[in-house]
């Protein structure tokens, strides 16, 4: 199994990956509270970026409404925990189920009726916005006044109920991110992965070769939404508060796709590199602003915008492919 996974991967890449993983593993031993929070955020964006990448990078379906799956996943597990005391590990089954259903519904509507390209992107936004306004009026989870989880006691780690220290969440997120990386690597080498790439490159040609477009596009949406829902569960239990205005907002959908775009759409390492670059730089910028005593909202987003602009203009494939070439990881 391991042998098949690493087959054909340059040894240099394996060494670098192992080094990165080890570095991330020992990171909490050296990092303070703030750096640990930044580390969590980076891993979170790397994970959701990887999930989004399955849809856009592999199967070529542009989703601009991934905040829908984050939000549904977060709300489902949090509501089950708060109302019924259900452990998030069981609740995440509901999270994943609901998100997959939502993804399947959107996919079904779009792919059955031939909604593609920009229209598909707008349809995904529409569903996320629909959910945002709907949850604003959803009394069971306190509507627009926000849904709160009982705040954790940081001295003990209750893994079963996901109540614990930031370090625990950091390691959980690290495990998820590493798992997503391996899963995506395996997917890309599977028959499914090759079908996706064929669909991305040319849907007409893929269809002519007998690839069932509907089935494999659906597979991409469903897998991606399930993974994103997992990130939502982590988000809910880490931050302990959920507001429809924030979690379902379009700016969240855009924030989470910046990493893979800047890192490199369709690459495995791109979402990780992008998350590091973007979150790292944005937090650095915040620190500089703080030192200078400037406190203006919106500066971080302008910075995001400029990064995105520069990358789409000058590095349309993202920053990772040229780096990979330099490192000799790719011919």
């Amino acid at each position, binding site marked *: 199994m391991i042998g098949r996974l690493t087959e054909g991967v340059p040894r240099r890449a394996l060494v670098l990956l192992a080094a990165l993983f080890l570095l991330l593993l020992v990171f909490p031993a050296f990092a303070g509270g703030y750096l640990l929070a930044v580390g969590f955020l980076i891993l979170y964006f790397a994970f959701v970026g990887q999930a989004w990448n399955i849809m856009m990078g592999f199967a070529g379906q542009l989703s601009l409404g991934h905040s829908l799956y984050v939000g549904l996943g977060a709300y489902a597990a949090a509501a089950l925990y708060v109302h019924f005391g259900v452990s998030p590990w069981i609740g995440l089954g509901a999270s994943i189920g609901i998100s997959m259903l939502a993804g399947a519904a959107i996919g079904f509507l779009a792919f059955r009726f031939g909604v593609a390209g920009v229209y598909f*992107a707008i349809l995904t936004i529409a569903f996320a916005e629909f959910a945002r306004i709907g949850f604003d009026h959803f009394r069971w989870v306190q509507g627009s006044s926000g849904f709160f989880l009982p705040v954790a006691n940081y001295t003990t780690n209750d893994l079963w109920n996901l109540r614990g220290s930031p370090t625990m969440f950091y390691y959980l997120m690290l495990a998820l991110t590493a798992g997503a990386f391996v899963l995506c690597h395996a997917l890309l080498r599977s028959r499914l992965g090759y079908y996706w790439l064929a669909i991305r490159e040319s849907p007409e040609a893929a269809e002519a070769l007998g690839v069932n477009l509907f089935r494999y596009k659906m597979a991409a949406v469903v897998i991606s939404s399930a993974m994103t829902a997992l990130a939502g569960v982590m988000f809910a239990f880490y931050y302990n508060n959920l507001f429809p205005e924030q979690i379902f907002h379009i700016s969240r959908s855009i924030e989470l796709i910046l990493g893979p775009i800047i890192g490199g759409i369709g690459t495995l390492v791109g979402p990780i590199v992008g998350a590091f670059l973007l979150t790292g730089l944005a937090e650095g910028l915040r620190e500089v602003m703080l030192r200078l005593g400037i406190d203006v909202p919106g*500066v971080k987003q302008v910075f995001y915008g400029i990064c995105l602009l520069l990358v789409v203009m000058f590095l349309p494939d993202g920053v990772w492919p040229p780096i990979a070439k330099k490192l000799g990881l790719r011919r």
Partner: protein
Amino acid sequence: MPVEIYLNVAAGGLLTGLVYGLMALGLSVIFGVVRVVNFAHGEMMTLAMYLALLLFTTLGLDPLVALVPIAAALLVFGYLLQIGLINPFINRPEHSQFMLLVAVALILVNAQLIVFGPDAQGIRTRYSFDSFQLGPLIVDAAKVYAAAAALVVAAALFAFFRYTLLGKAIRACADNYHGALVVGLNVKHLYALTFGLGAACVGAAGAMLMAVIDVTPSIGPAYTLLAFVIVITGGLGSMPGALLGGVLIGLTEALGGVLFTPSAKSMFAFALLVLVLLFRPQGILGRKAA
């Protein structure tokens, strides 16, 4: 509730819908010719709204007068945006263009947040509290003026595309990009002009809306979505479709606001969008794609 209330609300929705229609017309014109989806449309509109606000507070200029210089300013802005940023992307994949405009939108909305702050700001004109009475109907004067101005601007745009040589040249670019190149049209310039005209539409619409609603930077993305909903409902690339879609969405939102709660009114617009995308993806007045 008595029937008059619904009629009044519907009339208000219809009038606001015409202004929405003008805004969406800008998006539709840009897509119809340049084939680029302007993701920064609502953000350009809030920019125009802030310009109207500034002109009102500093010079006391009525927004319905200010719409002329504002439309001109947005025309220049749109022209430069197309020349500087978008023209190099003409032959790039669709999602790449989309991302470019997402970046522009992100920068515009947050730059406005930095400059103007997050608070809602509005203006009070002489006629802010005036209304007209037509039988059982009572309609806001500001909305009537804004809707009339929207119709005038839209009519001017229709006439431009139909009767002037420049308008015909732009339509030629839309119909056949390579053909337009072959007969020697300066396509890049015409594209930029089109983007400028689309921006001028949304600029005029923004100035008018300033007479009716308050502005905050955060409504920018919401109006971008609204413009998408409208043009897809009416038919992306169809000019009458944009106006019709605007009126439909204006009515839907207004009636949805009365029948349920006002804060949920956009849900009805999105529901309409989903229905249209599923059953008539080319829009009500759109031509079927090949």
